């Protein structure tokens, strides 16, 4: 039925178009359009230009300030995000002004200088002064924008503060895992050749620092503390994108990248602020990576630092959850490994299995 309607509609539209076409051709011939220099409906076009201008500007303002803006501006939840948003809106103000101003000139002139038999266009091939002015003004405005942007960029991409928490972010088709450094505060080495069904991140247990590392499939962050994300990918390029934190960095196989920032609002804070008790921060994959690119997400949980620390302490090291990997630890390190991963009092936990079964 639906198909039939479409077919009928298409046929009808074609018929109407063809009729319009025939009629206008005949009218055109009758009016002697072919001989006159200017189309008979020149004036109509000029009017339409103005109409378009007015409706367009109205639509622009309505859509931008008519109360819909709340739905497309994500609340900011990071320190640098406040700065980038500030300059984003400055840039928006400048460009919106130029946008409206130039479109008014464009369509306004089109209307005002529409063809008139009794007028001659003015021969006005150039004016050096004008041209210098409108080269210089954009140059100056852009310079201001660039320099401010550059300063922020330097802060964002500069070295992370000493006290930043290091967390490894690992992207794969199609999900994310996060590795925390454990008690020693240091992430251990990895080796992509060590990846297997259990050791999804390829943790290299030859390195002592890795013995107490633990893995989570949600990203826990402390509020008000800098965090340094060390980013890798398993298979193709992904992108760690966190719209609320105004943070993004690609995850590239073979080329570790990093990004640091400071979350300023806990998940609970955001729930209060947005009035949405279900609110969750989301980590979004933002580089085309295959079939389920559009479903590649992770939940981010920001907690007060105390709660974060408690959570952190409660996590079991990878080695503790998977004692069979002890065999990969060099003999001289085995004893230390058992201690730092708290493997000795582990018998009960073993049967529970590992927390990453969702892989």
């Amino acid at each position, binding site marked *: 039925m639906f198909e039939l309607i479409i077919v009928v509609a298409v046929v009808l*539209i074609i018929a109407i178009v063809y009729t*319009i076409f025939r009629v206008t051709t005949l009218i055109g011939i009758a009016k002697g359009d072919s001989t006159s220099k200017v189309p008979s409906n020149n004036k109509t076009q000029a009017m339409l230009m103005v109409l378009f201008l007015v409706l367009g500007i109205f639509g622009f303002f309505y859509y931008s300030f008519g109360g819909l803006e709340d739905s497309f501006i994500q609340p900011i939840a990071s320190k640098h995000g406040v700065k980038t948003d500030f300059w984003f809106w400055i*840039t928006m103000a400048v460009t919106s002004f130029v946008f409206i101003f130039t479109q008014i000139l464009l369509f306004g002139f089109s209307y005002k200088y529409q063809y008139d038999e009794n007028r001659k266009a*003015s021969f006005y091939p150039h004016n050096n002064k004008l041209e210098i002015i409108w080269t210089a003004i954009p140059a100056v405005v*852009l310079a201001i924008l660039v320099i401010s942007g550059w300063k922020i960029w330097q802060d964002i991409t500069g070295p992370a503060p000493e006290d930043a928490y290091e967390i490894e972010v690992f992207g794969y088709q199609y999900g994310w895992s996060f590795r925390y450094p454990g008690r020693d505060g240091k992430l251990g080495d990895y080796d992509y050749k060590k990846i297997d069904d259990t050791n999804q991140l390829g943790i290299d247990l030859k390195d002592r620092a890795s013995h107490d590392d633990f893995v989570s499939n949600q990203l826990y962050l402390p509020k008000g503390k800098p965090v340094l994300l060390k980013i890798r990918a398993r298979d*193709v390029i992904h992108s760690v994108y966190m719209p609320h934190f105004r943070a993004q960095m690609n995850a590239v*196989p073979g080329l570790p*990248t990093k990004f640091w920032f400071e979350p300023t609002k806990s998940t609970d804070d955001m729930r209060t602020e947005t009035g949405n008790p279900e609110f969750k921060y989301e980590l979004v994959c933002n580089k085309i990576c295959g079939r389920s690119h559009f479903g590649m997400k992770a939940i981010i949980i920001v907690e007060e630092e105390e709660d974060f620390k408690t959570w952190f302490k409660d996590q079991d090291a990878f080695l503790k959850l998977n004692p069979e990997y002890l065999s990969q630890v060099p003999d001289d390190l085995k004893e230390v490994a058992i201690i730092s991963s708290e493997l000795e009092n582990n018998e009960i936990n073993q049967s529970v299995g590992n927390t990453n079964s969702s892989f």
Partner: protein
Amino acid sequence: MSITDIQLEENLAHHDDHHDDHHEQSFISKYIFSTDHKMIAKQFLITGIMWAVIGGGLSIIFRLQLGFPGADLSWLKPILGEWIDAEGSIDPEFYLALVTMHGTIMVFFVLTAGLSGTFSNFLIPLQIGARDMASGFMNMLSYWMFFLSSAIMFISLFLETGPAAGGWTVYPPLSILSDAIQGSGGGMTLWLVSMVFFIASTLLGGINYIATVINMRTKGMSFSRLPLTVWAFFITAVIGLLSFPVLVAAALLLVFDRSFGTSFYLSEIFIGGEALPNIGGSPILYQHLFWFLGHPEVYIVILPALGITSEIIATNSRKPIFGYRAMIGSMLAIAFLSFIVWAHHMFVSGLNPFLGSIFMFLTLIIAVPSAVKAFNYITTLWRGNIVFTPAMLFSIGLVSFFISGGLTGIFLGNSALDINLHDTYFVVAHFHLVMGSASFFGLMAGVYHWFPKMFGRMMDKTMGYIHFWLTFVGVYLVFFPLHYIGIAGFPRRYYAFTNFDAFSTFGDLNTFVSIAAIVTFAAQFLFLFNFFNSIFRGRKAPENPWNSNTLEWTTPRNPGHGNWPGPIPTVYRWAYDYSKPGSDSDFIPQHIPLSQTPESNFPHEEELAKSEVISEDNGAHESH
């Protein structure tokens, strides 16, 4: 008739000035293996139009998915077959193939080959006063390379594993590993083969355009008298010549990695349950090489459209283009700068932040010449006497898009702001306005404007008007809202947005955009009808329907091989003597000697007029 015969005959025609009627050519040499630049231009145009329909059609399919998630699309099964599953949804991998093919087709096949191929070919010889391109044979080869490339890309659409699906930028490792996505199998191979032929076609064409502009200008046609169209085509060809070979290099390394086990772009990858042996390559290397072409490419797409617009706006404002020299200067500046801004596509790729800073500065410099161009167009309208032909409307539309889309470049070029905008719909909105729609409008403007010279008939104006307004409003309705969801962070190349709380509120907006897209696409059929109908049944065109100054309008209604039946006209002035003070007429074509217009000459022209040597045959064409 063999090709050499044709060339021989052509040469005869060149030498014999009074040789008016050509021998009847066979169908094949006239319409298929033609070496006449005008016919080749039409071949590019018609192939380009076919690609535009396909490329646009693909976008409608994926807009259906975005605008009406979960709708039953079983009725598309006759076209898409297995790509529609039992519930009537599009396969997510095929969705990616659709966006990839849409991007590739639009950027390369429609807006590069369809635009430059058509108008550089058609206008360069006609506007500089040459009988044909420097090498008609190479020109023919250029089209047939393009045809071959098109055929291969088209075939790839029908592979069982689908066409390439890694995005039009085909970043590795995704484009290398068929374990990662099916489209990186046979589809990607055909993509690469097709692009190699495409690049060969572009280079053959480009060398020809450059050689023709440098060597074959008619007497008096100095560079400072060239119409801006020709300047734009010339600069475009130079950019293409310098940047496309780099894409060949990038593609070649990709081929090695795909087929011969090298590790240019691959390192430390675990996929399909095993660790690949490749170590030491860098996916970022590919991005550098790609964007070294990719950024200049966006100017390869827009400059011809801007050139066309310059010509049309001047003609229909009945005024000289404002700031002729500034226009050339800004094009040269853009051409130069376009080679040193590429890494602004890579701010968050893991690029060294210091490089990011450098590229941010260079990128924002390129906005200045772009702004100058926009102001110059607007000033050309100021105190003009504007005739709204459909071509003029499309040109004004182009300027509007160029401004709207260019302004968002200022956000993106600022690396600190780009962190949050990269790969979102904000970027999609940016480049569809500034590049996609603006260049498409340039193409349309060019077709409406030069159709009378191409086919000797007029297109229907009223239909042109309706086509313009539907398309113009439609484009804004489709692309403007995308800024808003982009600001919200909605990622591009997403099959659906329902998985994320942050984006799930945009359902209505997406439906609206999809409906606008369908209406806009449908409006293009008006154009198609008008175009093909007018070729056969349009009103016969006068020689110079728009009262324009450039040389192509001095040719007969249907210029034959060699363009001018008589001698080639000599040029005595620039192309923009519109509404010159003192002159009765509101235009003085380029071939009218200054000595014939004493009433409107400026003092320095009066000097020139004295030394002017007027060739005897000048004006011979007028007798025809």
